[in-house]
């Protein structure tokens, strides 16, 4: 149940960040924050991928 709560809250969190105007987008780019966001998102995805690979590894051990 806790996992479900965390998943639901995690899915709703992006709503806290309102979409930005194009002017704000320019500001993001000019001070490099945009690229920090891109890097963090990529790291989060890589974390998910590593987690899936570790589950895969454990499953293989159990199947043997």
């Amino acid at each position, binding site marked *: 149940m806790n996992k479900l709560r965390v998943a639901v809250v995690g*899915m*709703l969190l*992006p*709503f806290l960040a309102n*979409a*930005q*105007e*194009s*002017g704000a*987008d*320019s500001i993001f*780019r000019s001070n490099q924050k*945009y*690229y920090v*966001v*891109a890097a963090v*998102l*990529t790291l989060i*995805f*890589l974390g998910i*991928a590593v987690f*899936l*690979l570790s*589950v*895969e590894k454990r*499953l*293989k051990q*159990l*199947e043997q």
Partner: protein
Amino acid sequence: MLPGWTKQMWWKYLSIVLLVYVLIGGLTVPLGPGLVSINPIAFTPGAENNFTIEAVNTHFQTGKNVQVFLKSAGKYLCVENAKATSETSLRFMLPMAQLANADKVDNTFDVIVNDDADGTIALRDALVMNGLVPDSLQANECVVAVANNLHTGFAFPYREILYESIRNTFYHVPMWFSMLLVLIVSLVYSIKYLSSNNKLYDIIAAESVNVSLLCGALGIVTGMMWANYTWGSPWPNDPKLNGAAVGVLIYLAYIILRGAIQDEVKRARISAVYNIFAIVIYVLFIFIIPRITDSLHPGNGGNPAFSKYDLDSHLRLFFYPAVIGWVLLFMWLVSIRVRIRFLEEIKLDNE
């Protein structure tokens, strides 16, 4: 015996590579040049009018041959003294003598700017002419001659309303592609179960539906965020959105149905039959009804298809890998869920 694809690794690594490529490339490629605003937005015939244009990602100073045109009712009007004040802004003057055949000119104008670096960029219905056009207005229609129509850099298209949110194309759309594909996998295994009574096929069908619901939830969340930005409301009354909600509810009902039946064989048979009917209703609500009624979505309700205007060659370089990557990632989740369920079944049988 589990199907071979659940244990193969190459397509799982491929999904990681494709999605990292989409994440990095899709977020860092800049938008192309575009016009943001013109000030003032209205003018009165009979007087000289000075305007300022603001733009993004343009090269008005370094790009050569900056020209400004106004377009109304298929006629082009040239402006005078177009002068770049920075890379992203320029000024021009509109002498009233430029209004050719005034009686044929509408009172709204598209503003079009061209330079050699940025190509042709436009702001539709940007300028409004106040009042009626005097019959006595004399003018010259200008001849449009530009050296380069296309933006030369590598960028995503700058679209009014969408702006930077165009990058959501790599997340929102593939979620629905993934959901449909995973549901088709579920359908195939439901049919296989009905023809063989193999319990494993029932497990694959059920777990595929579970993962497809995750795709649907993510599709709805990304869609609501996009709709809030572009249409001003997270859930406008659109048949595609309502159809998507009904489609997801149909498969939630599948989960409830399975939970309500205790007998394993009966549960598997009834849910397999339900699954066959469910996908027909799902396709009806997601793909058919939005196409025959008014809809805000591209390619629906008489709107231009998605690929015609919004998906240019630079977007395609990321969109197709995104679709393949997300589909493979969700199939990976299916394979993990199926293998876990299979191990649980073996454990239960041994006990």
